[in-house]
Protein backbone atom coordinates (compact mmCIF):
# COMPACT_ATOMS: atom_id res chain seq x y z
CA UNK A 1 0.00 0.00 0.00
CA UNK A 2 1.31 3.37 -1.03
CA UNK A 3 -0.42 6.44 0.37
CA UNK A 4 -0.03 8.34 -2.91
CA UNK A 5 -1.93 5.57 -4.65
CA UNK A 6 -4.95 5.57 -2.33
CA UNK A 7 -7.91 6.70 -4.37
CA UNK A 8 -9.57 9.91 -3.21
CA UNK A 9 -6.95 10.67 -0.57
CA UNK A 10 -5.79 14.24 -0.89
CA UNK A 11 -2.38 14.54 0.69
CA UNK A 12 -0.55 17.78 1.49
CA UNK A 13 1.61 18.94 -1.37
CA UNK A 14 5.35 19.41 -0.97
CA UNK A 15 5.02 23.01 -2.07
CA UNK A 16 2.15 23.83 0.30
CA UNK A 17 3.16 26.76 2.51
CA UNK A 18 1.72 25.08 5.61
CA UNK A 19 4.02 22.08 5.29
CA UNK A 20 7.08 23.73 3.82
CA UNK A 21 10.30 21.88 4.78
CA UNK A 22 8.32 18.95 6.21
CA UNK A 23 9.73 15.65 5.07
CA UNK A 24 6.85 13.37 4.10
CA UNK A 25 7.71 12.42 0.54
CA UNK A 26 9.25 9.08 1.58
CA UNK A 27 6.29 8.26 3.80
CA UNK A 28 3.77 9.01 1.06
CA UNK A 29 5.56 6.89 -1.53
CA UNK A 30 6.73 3.98 0.64
CA UNK A 31 5.15 0.62 -0.21
CA UNK A 32 3.88 -0.83 3.08
CA UNK A 33 3.03 -4.54 3.04
CA UNK A 34 0.08 -4.29 5.45
CA UNK A 35 -2.33 -1.81 6.95
CA UNK A 36 -3.77 -2.30 10.41
CA UNK A 37 -5.91 -0.48 12.94
CA UNK A 38 -4.13 -0.24 16.26
CA UNK A 39 -6.68 -1.35 18.84
CA UNK A 40 -6.67 0.37 22.20
CA UNK A 41 -6.71 -1.94 25.16
CA UNK A 42 -9.81 -0.42 26.74
CA UNK A 43 -13.12 -2.31 26.80
CA UNK A 44 -16.56 -0.84 26.30
CA UNK A 45 -15.75 2.38 24.50
CA UNK A 46 -18.18 3.70 21.95
CA UNK A 47 -17.10 3.60 18.29
CA UNK A 48 -18.38 6.19 15.81
CA UNK A 49 -17.71 7.09 12.19
CA UNK A 50 -15.42 10.07 11.93
CA UNK A 51 -17.37 12.44 9.67
CA UNK A 52 -15.48 15.61 10.44
CA UNK A 53 -13.80 17.69 7.73
CA UNK A 54 -10.41 18.67 9.05
CA UNK A 55 -8.27 21.71 8.45
CA UNK A 56 -5.67 19.82 6.44
CA UNK A 57 -5.13 16.60 4.55
CA UNK A 58 -2.96 14.76 7.07
CA UNK A 59 -6.03 13.85 9.13
CA UNK A 60 -7.49 12.08 6.11
CA UNK A 61 -4.83 9.35 6.07
CA UNK A 62 -6.14 7.52 9.15
CA UNK A 63 -9.73 8.29 8.14
CA UNK A 64 -9.21 6.82 4.68
CA UNK A 65 -7.79 3.55 5.99
CA UNK A 66 -10.28 3.20 8.86
CA UNK A 67 -12.94 5.82 9.46
CA UNK A 68 -13.94 4.37 12.83
CA UNK A 69 -13.18 6.52 15.82
CA UNK A 70 -13.12 5.32 19.41
CA UNK A 71 -14.68 7.77 21.89
CA UNK A 72 -13.40 8.16 25.44
CA UNK A 73 -15.82 10.27 27.45
CA UNK A 74 -14.72 11.65 30.80
CA UNK A 75 -17.82 12.57 32.78
CA UNK A 76 -16.35 13.37 36.16
CA UNK A 77 -13.08 14.51 37.70
CA UNK A 78 -10.39 11.86 37.62
CA UNK A 79 -7.71 11.95 40.31
CA UNK A 80 -5.03 10.23 38.24
CA UNK A 81 -4.10 10.58 34.57
CA UNK A 82 -5.41 7.98 32.14
CA UNK A 83 -2.36 6.39 30.60
CA UNK A 84 -2.36 4.88 27.10
CA UNK A 85 0.74 3.05 25.90
CA UNK A 86 1.11 2.27 22.19
CA UNK A 87 3.73 -0.25 21.07
CA UNK A 88 4.20 -0.86 17.37
CA UNK A 89 5.74 -4.27 16.80
CA UNK A 90 5.00 -5.40 13.23
CA UNK A 91 7.44 -4.55 10.44
CA UNK A 92 6.46 -3.03 7.08
CA UNK A 93 3.01 -2.13 8.39
CA UNK A 94 0.99 1.05 8.27
CA UNK A 95 -0.96 1.41 11.51
CA UNK A 96 -3.83 3.81 12.12
CA UNK A 97 -5.68 4.80 15.25
CA UNK A 98 -8.33 7.41 15.91
CA UNK A 99 -9.53 8.50 19.32
CA UNK A 100 -11.84 11.25 20.48
CA UNK A 101 -11.48 12.37 24.07
CA UNK A 102 -14.54 14.20 25.40
CA UNK A 103 -14.08 16.09 28.63
CA UNK A 104 -17.48 17.04 29.96
CA UNK A 105 -18.56 20.37 31.49
CA UNK A 106 -16.67 21.42 34.67
CA UNK A 107 -14.58 18.25 34.63
CA UNK A 108 -10.85 18.17 35.28
CA UNK A 109 -9.00 15.34 33.59
CA UNK A 110 -5.58 14.37 32.36
CA UNK A 111 -4.28 11.84 29.84
CA UNK A 112 -0.79 10.58 29.02
CA UNK A 113 0.02 8.75 25.79
CA UNK A 114 3.29 7.00 25.04
CA UNK A 115 4.15 5.94 21.49
CA UNK A 116 7.00 3.45 21.11
CA UNK A 117 7.97 0.74 18.67
CA UNK A 118 10.19 -2.23 18.00
CA UNK A 119 9.23 -2.38 14.32
CA UNK A 120 11.19 -1.62 11.16
CA UNK A 121 9.87 0.30 8.17
CA UNK A 122 6.46 0.82 9.72
CA UNK A 123 4.33 3.89 10.16
CA UNK A 124 1.75 4.98 12.69
CA UNK A 125 -0.85 7.56 11.78
CA UNK A 126 -2.77 8.79 14.79
CA UNK A 127 -5.80 11.07 14.88
CA UNK A 128 -6.91 12.74 18.10
CA UNK A 129 -9.93 14.90 18.75
CA UNK A 130 -10.02 16.69 22.06
CA UNK A 131 -13.51 18.02 22.78
CA UNK A 132 -13.31 20.09 25.92
CA UNK A 133 -16.63 21.33 27.18
CA UNK A 134 -17.52 24.49 29.08
CA UNK A 135 -15.31 25.20 32.09
CA UNK A 136 -13.52 21.86 31.71
CA UNK A 137 -9.80 21.56 32.34
CA UNK A 138 -7.83 19.05 30.28
CA UNK A 139 -4.13 18.32 30.51
CA UNK A 140 -2.53 16.02 27.97
CA UNK A 141 1.05 14.80 27.71
CA UNK A 142 2.52 12.80 24.88
CA UNK A 143 5.82 10.95 24.73
CA UNK A 144 6.87 10.07 21.19
CA UNK A 145 9.72 7.57 21.14
CA UNK A 146 9.49 6.08 17.64
CA UNK A 147 12.88 4.97 16.44
CA UNK A 148 14.68 5.15 13.12
CA UNK A 149 13.27 3.68 9.92
CA UNK A 150 9.75 4.34 11.15
CA UNK A 151 7.27 7.12 10.54
CA UNK A 152 4.87 8.73 12.95
CA UNK A 153 2.09 11.16 12.06
CA UNK A 154 0.20 12.67 14.97
CA UNK A 155 -2.82 14.81 14.14
CA UNK A 156 -4.68 16.60 16.90
CA UNK A 157 -7.85 18.61 16.41
CA UNK A 158 -8.87 20.56 19.49
CA UNK A 159 -12.33 21.95 20.16
CA UNK A 160 -12.75 24.10 23.23
CA UNK A 161 -16.00 25.45 24.62
CA UNK A 162 -16.07 28.70 26.57
CA UNK A 163 -14.05 29.04 29.78
CA UNK A 164 -12.23 25.78 29.11
CA UNK A 165 -8.57 25.08 29.53
CA UNK A 166 -6.41 22.77 27.45
CA UNK A 167 -2.76 22.22 28.15
CA UNK A 168 -0.74 19.90 25.91
CA UNK A 169 2.90 18.96 26.44
CA UNK A 170 4.86 16.91 23.93
CA UNK A 171 8.10 15.10 24.50
CA UNK A 172 9.68 14.14 21.21
CA UNK A 173 12.43 11.65 21.98
CA UNK A 174 12.39 9.33 18.97
CA UNK A 175 14.78 9.07 16.04
CA UNK A 176 12.24 8.37 13.31
CA UNK A 177 10.49 10.65 10.85
CA UNK A 178 7.81 12.43 12.85
CA UNK A 179 5.12 14.91 11.91
CA UNK A 180 2.93 16.50 14.56
CA UNK A 181 -0.02 18.43 13.28
CA UNK A 182 -2.04 20.55 15.71
CA UNK A 183 -5.18 22.47 14.84
CA UNK A 184 -7.19 24.49 17.33
CA UNK A 185 -9.95 26.85 16.27
CA UNK A 186 -10.98 28.88 19.26
CA UNK A 187 -14.57 29.77 18.40
CA UNK A 188 -15.72 30.49 21.94
CA UNK A 189 -14.82 33.05 24.63
CA UNK A 190 -12.31 32.80 27.47
CA UNK A 191 -10.52 29.69 26.30
CA UNK A 192 -7.03 28.96 27.53
CA UNK A 193 -4.85 26.89 25.19
CA UNK A 194 -1.27 26.04 25.95
CA UNK A 195 0.87 23.89 23.67
CA UNK A 196 4.37 23.02 24.84
CA UNK A 197 6.96 20.77 23.30
CA UNK A 198 10.42 19.48 23.93
CA UNK A 199 12.11 18.08 20.84
CA UNK A 200 15.19 16.22 22.00
CA UNK A 201 16.69 14.72 18.90
CA UNK A 202 19.80 12.85 17.89
CA UNK A 203 21.10 10.64 15.08
CA UNK A 204 19.19 11.29 11.86
CA UNK A 205 15.80 11.95 13.43
CA UNK A 206 13.46 14.27 11.63
CA UNK A 207 10.71 15.95 13.64
CA UNK A 208 8.23 18.50 12.37
CA UNK A 209 5.65 20.42 14.37
CA UNK A 210 3.00 22.11 12.27
CA UNK A 211 0.65 24.17 14.40
CA UNK A 212 -2.38 26.17 13.37
CA UNK A 213 -4.35 28.18 15.89
CA UNK A 214 -7.25 30.44 15.00
CA UNK A 215 -8.86 32.92 17.38
CA UNK A 216 -12.46 33.63 16.39
CA UNK A 217 -13.84 34.94 19.69
CA UNK A 218 -12.96 37.24 22.55
CA UNK A 219 -10.61 36.88 25.49
CA UNK A 220 -8.89 33.63 24.62
CA UNK A 221 -5.27 32.79 25.15
CA UNK A 222 -3.00 30.67 23.00
CA UNK A 223 0.52 30.08 24.17
CA UNK A 224 2.80 27.90 22.04
CA UNK A 225 6.22 27.20 23.41
CA UNK A 226 8.74 24.72 21.93
CA UNK A 227 12.29 23.90 22.85
CA UNK A 228 14.57 21.88 20.58
CA UNK A 229 17.91 20.38 21.49
CA UNK A 230 19.36 18.81 18.36
CA UNK A 231 22.39 16.57 18.20
CA UNK A 232 24.16 14.71 15.39
CA UNK A 233 22.43 15.17 12.03
CA UNK A 234 18.93 15.57 13.43
CA UNK A 235 16.50 17.95 11.79
CA UNK A 236 13.47 19.77 13.14
CA UNK A 237 10.77 22.00 11.75
CA UNK A 238 8.68 24.36 13.84
CA UNK A 239 5.97 25.95 11.79
CA UNK A 240 3.34 27.76 13.81
CA UNK A 241 0.66 30.06 12.55
CA UNK A 242 -1.74 31.88 14.86
CA UNK A 243 -4.56 33.80 13.25
CA UNK A 244 -6.50 36.41 15.20
CA UNK A 245 -9.70 37.31 13.38
CA UNK A 246 -11.64 40.54 13.72
CA UNK A 247 -14.09 39.28 16.37
CA UNK A 248 -11.34 37.96 18.64
CA UNK A 249 -10.89 41.10 20.72
CA UNK A 250 -8.54 41.00 23.72
CA UNK A 251 -6.87 37.85 22.50
CA UNK A 252 -3.49 36.86 23.87
CA UNK A 253 -1.46 34.94 21.29
CA UNK A 254 2.12 33.91 21.92
CA UNK A 255 4.54 31.70 20.01
CA UNK A 256 8.07 30.86 20.92
CA UNK A 257 10.70 28.45 19.65
CA UNK A 258 14.16 28.08 21.22
CA UNK A 259 16.74 25.80 19.71
CA UNK A 260 20.14 24.60 20.78
CA UNK A 261 22.18 23.01 18.02
CA UNK A 262 24.71 20.60 19.47
CA UNK A 263 26.47 19.67 16.25
CA UNK A 264 27.38 21.30 12.96
CA UNK A 265 25.07 18.93 11.09
CA UNK A 266 21.93 19.50 13.16
CA UNK A 267 19.42 21.95 11.70
CA UNK A 268 16.15 23.67 12.54
CA UNK A 269 13.67 25.47 10.36
CA UNK A 270 11.64 27.61 12.73
CA UNK A 271 8.91 29.89 11.51
CA UNK A 272 6.55 31.37 14.07
CA UNK A 273 3.93 33.44 12.29
CA UNK A 274 1.08 35.70 13.40
CA UNK A 275 -1.79 36.95 11.26
CA UNK A 276 -3.63 39.65 13.14
CA UNK A 277 -6.69 41.54 12.00
CA UNK A 278 -7.33 43.64 15.13
CA UNK A 279 -5.47 46.08 17.37
CA UNK A 280 -6.93 45.15 20.76
CA UNK A 281 -4.75 42.20 21.68
CA UNK A 282 -1.47 41.06 23.15
CA UNK A 283 0.73 39.02 20.87
CA UNK A 284 4.33 38.04 20.45
CA UNK A 285 6.34 35.58 18.47
CA UNK A 286 9.99 34.66 18.44
CA UNK A 287 12.54 32.06 17.54
CA UNK A 288 16.09 31.69 18.77
CA UNK A 289 18.76 29.32 17.55
CA UNK A 290 22.20 28.92 19.04
CA UNK A 291 24.55 26.70 20.93
CA UNK A 292 25.02 26.37 24.66
CA UNK A 293 26.19 29.60 26.26
CA UNK A 294 29.99 29.37 26.43
CA UNK A 295 30.17 31.77 29.35
CA UNK A 296 27.84 29.53 31.36
CA UNK A 297 29.86 26.48 30.32
CA UNK A 298 33.08 28.13 31.44
CA UNK A 299 31.56 29.16 34.76
CA UNK A 300 30.50 25.59 35.58
CA UNK A 301 33.85 24.17 34.49
CA UNK A 302 35.75 26.81 36.45
CA UNK A 303 34.24 25.26 39.57
CA UNK A 304 35.61 21.84 38.70
CA UNK A 305 32.65 20.38 36.81
CA UNK A 306 33.83 18.44 33.75
CA UNK A 307 33.00 19.68 30.28
CA UNK A 308 30.66 16.73 29.61
CA UNK A 309 28.74 17.15 32.86
CA UNK A 310 28.55 20.93 32.37
CA UNK A 311 26.95 20.32 28.95
CA UNK A 312 24.48 17.93 30.50
CA UNK A 313 23.57 20.33 33.30
CA UNK A 314 23.01 23.24 30.94
CA UNK A 315 20.93 21.13 28.56
CA UNK A 316 18.73 19.98 31.41
CA UNK A 317 18.33 23.60 32.48
CA UNK A 318 17.25 24.51 28.95
CA UNK A 319 14.70 21.70 28.86
CA UNK A 320 13.48 22.27 32.40
CA UNK A 321 10.99 24.98 31.53
CA UNK A 322 8.92 22.51 29.53
CA UNK A 323 8.82 20.04 32.47
CA UNK A 324 8.08 22.86 34.90
CA UNK A 325 5.07 23.93 32.86
CA UNK A 326 3.30 20.64 33.50
CA UNK A 327 0.61 21.21 36.12
CA UNK A 328 -0.36 17.67 37.06
CA UNK A 329 2.27 16.32 39.46
CA UNK A 330 1.51 12.73 38.47
CA UNK A 331 2.20 13.55 34.81
CA UNK A 332 5.43 15.22 35.92
CA UNK A 333 6.48 12.11 37.85
CA UNK A 334 5.62 9.91 34.89
CA UNK A 335 7.71 12.00 32.50
CA UNK A 336 10.58 12.20 35.00
CA UNK A 337 10.76 8.45 35.40
CA UNK A 338 10.19 7.59 31.72
CA UNK A 339 12.67 5.17 30.20
CA UNK A 340 12.23 3.77 26.71
CA UNK A 341 13.38 0.28 27.70
CA UNK A 342 10.46 -0.02 30.13
CA UNK A 343 8.00 0.20 27.24
CA UNK A 344 9.54 -1.78 24.38
Amino acid at each position, binding site marked *: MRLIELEGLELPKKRSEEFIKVNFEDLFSYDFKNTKTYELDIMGLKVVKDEKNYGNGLFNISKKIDSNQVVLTINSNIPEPICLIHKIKDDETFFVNSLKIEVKENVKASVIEVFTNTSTNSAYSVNRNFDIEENANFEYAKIQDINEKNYFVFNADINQKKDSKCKITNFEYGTGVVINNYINTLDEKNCDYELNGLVKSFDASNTANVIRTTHNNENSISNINYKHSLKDSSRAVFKAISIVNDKALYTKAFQNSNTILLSNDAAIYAQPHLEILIDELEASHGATTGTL*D*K*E*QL*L*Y*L*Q*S*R*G*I*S*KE*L*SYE*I*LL*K*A*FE*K*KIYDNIEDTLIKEFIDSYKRQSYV
Partner: protein
Amino acid sequence: MLEVKDLKVNINDKEILKGLNLNIKEGEVHALMGVNGAGKSTLVKTLSAHYDCVVTGGSITYKKKDLLEMEVADRANEGIFMSFQNPVEVPGVNNSYFLKTAINEKRAYAGEEEIDAMDFLKLIKEQTAKYDLDKKLLQRDLNEGFSGGEKKRNELIQLLLLNPDLIMLDEIDSGLDVDAIKTVANVINSMLDGKKSVLMITHYDRLLELIKPDYVHILNDGKIVKTGDYSLALELDEKGYEGIGIKDETN
Protein backbone atom coordinates in the same frame (compact mmCIF):
# COMPACT_ATOMS: atom_id res chain seq x y z
CA MET B 1 53.03 27.48 44.00
CA LEU B 2 52.57 29.55 40.82
CA GLU B 3 55.25 30.68 38.46
CA VAL B 4 54.40 32.79 35.43
CA LYS B 5 57.29 33.33 33.03
CA ASP B 6 57.36 35.74 30.11
CA LEU B 7 53.64 35.25 29.50
CA LYS B 8 52.24 36.63 26.29
CA VAL B 9 48.48 36.53 25.72
CA ASN B 10 46.28 37.77 22.90
CA ILE B 11 42.60 38.56 23.02
CA ASN B 12 40.95 38.95 19.61
CA ASP B 13 44.39 39.00 17.99
CA LYS B 14 45.50 41.93 20.13
CA GLU B 15 48.44 41.36 22.43
CA ILE B 16 47.35 42.18 25.98
CA LEU B 17 50.01 40.50 28.12
CA LYS B 18 53.45 41.24 26.73
CA GLY B 19 55.90 39.12 28.68
CA LEU B 20 54.56 39.02 32.24
CA ASN B 21 56.51 37.46 35.08
CA LEU B 22 55.02 36.62 38.45
CA ASN B 23 55.95 34.24 41.22
CA ILE B 24 53.51 33.38 44.00
CA LYS B 25 54.71 31.17 46.85
CA GLU B 26 52.61 29.21 49.30
CA GLY B 27 50.87 31.42 51.85
CA GLU B 28 51.56 34.71 50.04
CA VAL B 29 48.99 37.41 49.31
CA HIS B 30 49.57 39.35 46.11
CA ALA B 31 47.63 42.37 44.90
CA LEU B 32 47.55 43.37 41.27
CA MET B 33 46.79 46.96 40.46
CA GLY B 34 46.88 49.00 37.29
CA VAL B 35 44.93 51.29 35.02
CA ASN B 36 41.94 49.96 33.09
CA GLY B 37 43.07 47.84 30.15
CA ALA B 38 46.51 47.10 31.61
CA GLY B 39 45.84 43.34 31.48
CA LYS B 40 44.92 42.50 35.10
CA SER B 41 41.77 40.54 34.29
CA THR B 42 43.49 38.93 31.31
CA LEU B 43 46.06 37.42 33.65
CA VAL B 44 43.51 35.80 35.98
CA LYS B 45 41.37 34.77 33.02
CA THR B 46 44.40 33.09 31.46
CA LEU B 47 45.14 31.31 34.72
CA SER B 48 41.61 29.89 34.71
CA ALA B 49 41.68 29.02 30.98
CA HIS B 50 39.15 31.54 29.73
CA TYR B 51 38.25 30.92 26.07
CA ASP B 52 39.02 34.56 25.15
CA CYS B 53 42.69 34.24 26.03
CA VAL B 54 45.16 32.84 23.53
CA VAL B 55 48.59 32.20 25.00
CA THR B 56 51.21 33.01 22.39
CA GLY B 57 54.31 32.67 24.54
CA GLY B 58 55.77 31.94 27.93
CA SER B 59 54.86 29.37 30.56
CA ILE B 60 52.77 28.93 33.69
CA THR B 61 53.76 26.35 36.28
CA TYR B 62 51.33 25.55 39.08
CA LYS B 63 52.29 23.06 41.80
CA LYS B 64 55.11 21.94 39.50
CA LYS B 65 52.67 21.12 36.70
CA ASP B 66 52.27 22.83 33.32
CA LEU B 67 49.06 24.76 33.89
CA LEU B 68 48.58 25.55 30.21
CA GLU B 69 48.19 21.83 29.49
CA MET B 70 45.33 21.50 31.98
CA GLU B 71 41.59 21.68 31.21
CA VAL B 72 39.45 24.34 32.93
CA ALA B 73 37.85 21.87 35.34
CA ASP B 74 41.17 20.21 36.16
CA ARG B 75 42.67 23.58 37.10
CA ALA B 76 39.77 24.12 39.49
CA ASN B 77 40.11 20.64 40.94
CA GLU B 78 43.83 21.23 41.42
CA GLY B 79 42.86 24.11 43.70
CA ILE B 80 42.57 27.24 41.56
CA PHE B 81 39.52 29.37 42.22
CA MET B 82 38.69 32.52 40.32
CA SER B 83 36.01 34.79 41.66
CA PHE B 84 34.43 36.33 38.57
CA GLN B 85 34.04 40.06 38.23
CA ASN B 86 30.50 39.60 36.95
CA PRO B 87 29.37 35.98 37.46
CA VAL B 88 27.08 34.78 34.68
CA GLU B 89 23.42 33.94 35.43
CA VAL B 90 22.50 30.31 34.80
CA PRO B 91 18.70 29.95 34.87
CA GLY B 92 17.39 26.43 35.41
CA VAL B 93 20.41 25.27 37.43
CA ASN B 94 19.71 25.21 41.13
CA ASN B 95 22.49 26.88 43.10
CA SER B 96 22.61 24.22 45.78
CA TYR B 97 22.69 21.39 43.22
CA PHE B 98 25.47 23.21 41.34
CA LEU B 99 27.57 23.62 44.48
CA LYS B 100 27.09 20.02 45.61
CA THR B 101 28.05 18.83 42.10
CA ALA B 102 31.18 21.00 42.15
CA ILE B 103 32.19 19.69 45.58
CA ASN B 104 31.68 16.11 44.46
CA GLU B 105 33.61 16.62 41.24
CA LYS B 106 36.52 17.93 43.29
CA ARG B 107 36.24 14.98 45.68
CA ALA B 108 36.13 12.51 42.80
CA TYR B 109 39.23 14.17 41.30
CA ALA B 110 41.03 13.70 44.60
CA GLY B 111 39.82 10.08 44.84
CA GLU B 112 37.57 10.87 47.79
CA GLU B 113 34.02 9.74 48.49
CA GLU B 114 31.05 11.90 47.48
CA ILE B 115 29.56 14.17 50.12
CA ASP B 116 26.07 13.01 51.10
CA ALA B 117 23.08 15.34 51.27
CA MET B 118 23.08 15.62 55.07
CA ASP B 119 26.78 16.43 55.33
CA PHE B 120 26.42 18.94 52.53
CA LEU B 121 23.57 20.74 54.30
CA LYS B 122 25.55 20.72 57.54
CA LEU B 123 28.58 22.21 55.81
CA ILE B 124 26.47 24.94 54.18
CA LYS B 125 24.84 25.79 57.50
CA GLU B 126 28.16 26.01 59.32
CA GLN B 127 30.01 28.07 56.73
CA THR B 128 27.23 30.52 55.91
CA ALA B 129 26.44 31.11 59.59
CA LYS B 130 30.08 31.84 60.37
CA TYR B 131 30.17 34.81 57.98
CA ASP B 132 26.51 35.79 58.04
CA LEU B 133 26.05 34.83 54.40
CA ASP B 134 22.44 34.34 53.30
CA LYS B 135 22.02 30.61 52.62
CA LYS B 136 18.69 31.31 50.92
CA LEU B 137 20.80 32.18 47.87
CA LEU B 138 21.34 28.45 47.53
CA GLN B 139 17.66 27.78 47.04
CA ARG B 140 17.55 29.96 43.93
CA ASP B 141 18.90 29.27 40.46
CA LEU B 142 22.59 29.98 40.00
CA ASN B 143 23.06 33.78 40.03
CA GLU B 144 19.67 34.26 38.36
CA GLY B 145 18.23 37.63 39.29
CA PHE B 146 20.93 38.14 41.92
CA SER B 147 21.95 41.71 42.71
CA GLY B 148 25.64 42.58 42.26
CA GLY B 149 26.21 42.09 45.98
CA GLU B 150 24.37 38.76 46.05
CA LYS B 151 26.50 37.50 43.16
CA LYS B 152 29.67 38.35 45.07
CA ARG B 153 28.34 36.71 48.26
CA ASN B 154 27.54 33.63 46.23
CA GLU B 155 31.12 33.57 44.97
CA LEU B 156 32.24 33.67 48.60
CA ILE B 157 30.00 30.71 49.51
CA GLN B 158 31.56 28.74 46.65
CA LEU B 159 35.02 29.81 47.75
CA LEU B 160 34.41 28.64 51.30
CA LEU B 161 33.00 25.30 50.31
CA LEU B 162 35.46 24.49 47.54
CA ASN B 163 38.37 25.46 49.78
CA PRO B 164 40.95 26.15 47.04
CA ASP B 165 44.71 26.62 47.35
CA LEU B 166 45.06 29.60 45.03
CA ILE B 167 42.33 32.21 45.40
CA MET B 168 42.03 34.73 42.60
CA LEU B 169 39.71 37.65 43.20
CA ASP B 170 38.89 39.79 40.17
CA GLU B 171 37.58 43.07 41.58
CA ILE B 172 35.48 41.32 44.17
CA ASP B 173 35.09 44.64 45.97
CA SER B 174 33.55 46.50 43.02
CA GLY B 175 29.98 47.54 43.73
CA LEU B 176 30.08 46.30 47.33
CA ASP B 177 29.16 48.37 50.34
CA VAL B 178 31.50 48.74 53.31
CA ASP B 179 29.93 45.90 55.30
CA ALA B 180 30.07 43.53 52.33
CA ILE B 181 33.76 44.35 51.77
CA LYS B 182 34.36 43.49 55.44
CA THR B 183 32.64 40.14 54.89
CA VAL B 184 34.90 39.45 51.89
CA ALA B 185 37.95 40.30 53.98
CA ASN B 186 36.75 38.13 56.90
CA VAL B 187 36.26 35.15 54.61
CA ILE B 188 39.65 35.55 52.92
CA ASN B 189 41.56 36.23 56.15
CA SER B 190 39.98 33.22 57.85
CA MET B 191 41.07 31.02 54.95
CA LEU B 192 44.69 32.15 55.09
CA ASP B 193 46.36 29.28 56.87
CA GLY B 194 49.91 29.87 55.67
CA LYS B 195 49.44 27.49 52.75
CA LYS B 196 46.76 29.16 50.67
CA SER B 197 47.79 31.97 48.37
CA VAL B 198 45.79 34.92 47.10
CA LEU B 199 46.01 36.96 43.94
CA MET B 200 43.60 39.86 44.06
CA ILE B 201 42.84 42.53 41.55
CA THR B 202 41.53 45.75 42.98
CA HIS B 203 41.41 49.43 42.20
CA TYR B 204 40.89 50.52 45.76
CA ASP B 205 42.85 50.62 48.94
CA ARG B 206 39.88 49.68 51.12
CA LEU B 207 40.14 45.92 50.46
CA LEU B 208 43.91 46.03 50.88
CA GLU B 209 43.49 47.71 54.27
CA LEU B 210 41.54 44.68 55.37
CA ILE B 211 43.51 41.96 53.59
CA LYS B 212 47.09 43.10 53.90
CA PRO B 213 49.05 41.97 50.84
CA ASP B 214 52.64 40.77 51.05
CA TYR B 215 53.28 42.10 47.56
CA VAL B 216 51.65 44.80 45.45
CA HIS B 217 52.29 44.70 41.70
CA ILE B 218 51.56 47.48 39.28
CA LEU B 219 50.67 46.22 35.84
CA ASN B 220 51.03 48.52 32.88
CA ASP B 221 50.72 47.70 29.19
CA GLY B 222 50.82 43.96 29.72
CA LYS B 223 53.81 43.80 32.05
CA ILE B 224 54.46 44.15 35.77
CA VAL B 225 56.36 47.41 35.96
CA LYS B 226 56.65 47.91 39.69
CA THR B 227 56.49 45.64 42.72
CA GLY B 228 56.49 46.61 46.35
CA ASP B 229 54.81 45.92 49.63
CA TYR B 230 51.59 47.39 51.01
CA SER B 231 53.21 50.85 51.13
CA LEU B 232 53.18 50.90 47.31
CA ALA B 233 49.38 50.67 47.38
CA LEU B 234 49.27 53.54 49.88
CA GLU B 235 51.57 55.61 47.72
CA LEU B 236 49.44 54.87 44.68
CA ASP B 237 46.31 55.86 46.57
CA GLU B 238 47.92 59.15 47.49
CA LYS B 239 49.72 60.10 44.25
CA GLY B 240 47.90 58.22 41.50
CA TYR B 241 49.59 56.27 38.68
CA GLU B 242 51.28 59.25 37.09
CA GLY B 243 52.55 60.37 40.50
CA ILE B 244 54.47 57.12 40.93
CA GLY B 245 55.89 57.29 37.42
CA ILE B 246 53.45 55.02 35.59
CA LYS B 247 52.43 56.37 32.22
CA ASP B 248 49.12 55.00 30.92
CA GLU B 249 50.15 53.16 27.74
CA THR B 250 46.69 51.89 26.91
CA ASN B 251 45.42 55.11 25.35
